[in-house]
């Protein structure tokens, strides 16, 4: 892995979505700027429902550098990672109809697309996907409370990850960069499985409620 050789910037902390600040119109015009209150899910819904290119541009500015870093951390060299980050964001546009803000944050959804791209790059093990399931409720009329809860989940997990001791945080990151084999994950050495499980419990409860 080449991750040690890569100079990565610290993300602009002010650029992180903190918590959903209640229902609001995120896309007001063509001049958009990200703030720490940026409502990524609302931007994504604007892309999904109205093919809003200004909203897409904001999503691109935030997520493309993160996808590029993710792919570089996974061992992809910079130029290819940049091309693939563009592919991933183009897929975000193309597959926007699959985005369900009550189920996953934009970051989580982008992660799954980036992960699949990473697997394609490796050209080794395919990753079969589960059958598509129709969830309860109408995807196109997300409940504001659901959106709020989903944003809270994402903010909580991001905060929890950052609060872990550095060695543990790095190991969780390596697992999701695909650097740890399933056997290394299974052996749990240093992976804070208990912490992870306790932190995702609320998300699991929420998804269960959503699904039933």
């Amino acid at each position, binding site marked *: 892995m080449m991750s040690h050789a890569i100079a990565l910037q610290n993300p602009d902390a002010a650029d992180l979505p903190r918590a959903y600040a209640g229902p609001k119109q995120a896309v007001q015009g063509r001049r958009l700027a990200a703030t720490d209150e940026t409502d990524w899910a609302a931007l994504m819904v604007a892309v999904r429902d109205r093919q809003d290119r200004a909203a897409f541009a904001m999503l691109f500015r935030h997520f493309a550098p993160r996808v590029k870093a993710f792919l570089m951390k996974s061992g992809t060299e910079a130029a290819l990672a940049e091309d693939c980050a563009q592919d991933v964001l183009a897929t975000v546009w193309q597959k926007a109809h699959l985005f369900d803000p009550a189920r996953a944050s934009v970051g989580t959804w982008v992660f799954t697309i980036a992960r699949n791209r990473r697997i394609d790059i490796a050209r080794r093990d395919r990753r079969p996907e589960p059958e598509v399931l129709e969830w309860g409720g109408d995807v196109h009329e997300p409940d504001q409370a659901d959106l709020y809860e989903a944003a809270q989940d*994402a903010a909580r997990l991001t905060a929890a990850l950052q609060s872990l001791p550095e060695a543990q945080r790095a190991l969780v990151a390596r697992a999701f960069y695909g650097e740890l084999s*399933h056997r290394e994950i299974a052996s749990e050495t240093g992976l804070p499985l208990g912490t992870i499980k306790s932190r995702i419990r609320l998300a699991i409860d929420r998804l269960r409620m959503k699904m039933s």
Partner: protein
Amino acid sequence: MTITHHLSDQLLIAYAAGSLPEAFSLVAATHVSLCDDCRIRIEAYEAIGGAVLETETAEMGEASLEACLARLGQPDTPHRPAPRRGLLPSPLADYVGGDLDKVRWRSLGMGVRQAILPTAKGASARLLYIPAGQGVPDHGHRGLELTLVLQGAFHDARARFGPGDVEIADESDEHTPVAETGDACICLAATDAPLRFISLLPRLLQPIFRI
């Protein structure tokens, strides 16, 4: 479907992270197609991936946004997933090329049949057909073995496994699964090492049967 034996958290994390060998991913995807609980847990683990994604950035080239915008076409339109018609969930049906009637079984003797599915090296996947009431030869494991029941049921000294259940066995397990009476037991099994059969099938035949 009442499922009592699920994927472990470690397997769910590895599947969410995309680091499982293909054969194990196939078992995970097939189980998750049948198990809402594991589907939810995987989506929650994917949220950790989302949090990891937020932690680092790498600068994109100046023209990258314009280049990407120029590529955007008409997005895909939503379509309802087709309902499952046969026994095999879609990820497994994709490997078989259809439902059970498309499986190319090979006899292993004693009525036991198997069909090896094409997956990447490192782990192998196969469908197993065990006649009702029939024992599977004693076997221990050198690696990790996942066995997902699709039809019928089997039990060993520890537990009973019915449709949707996954048995997770590793180096420490040596067991004697027996198919229950009723329907023949059909399983999807994946392992990252050749099984060693202790009785019935001479060790010498293993390379021929690829089990």
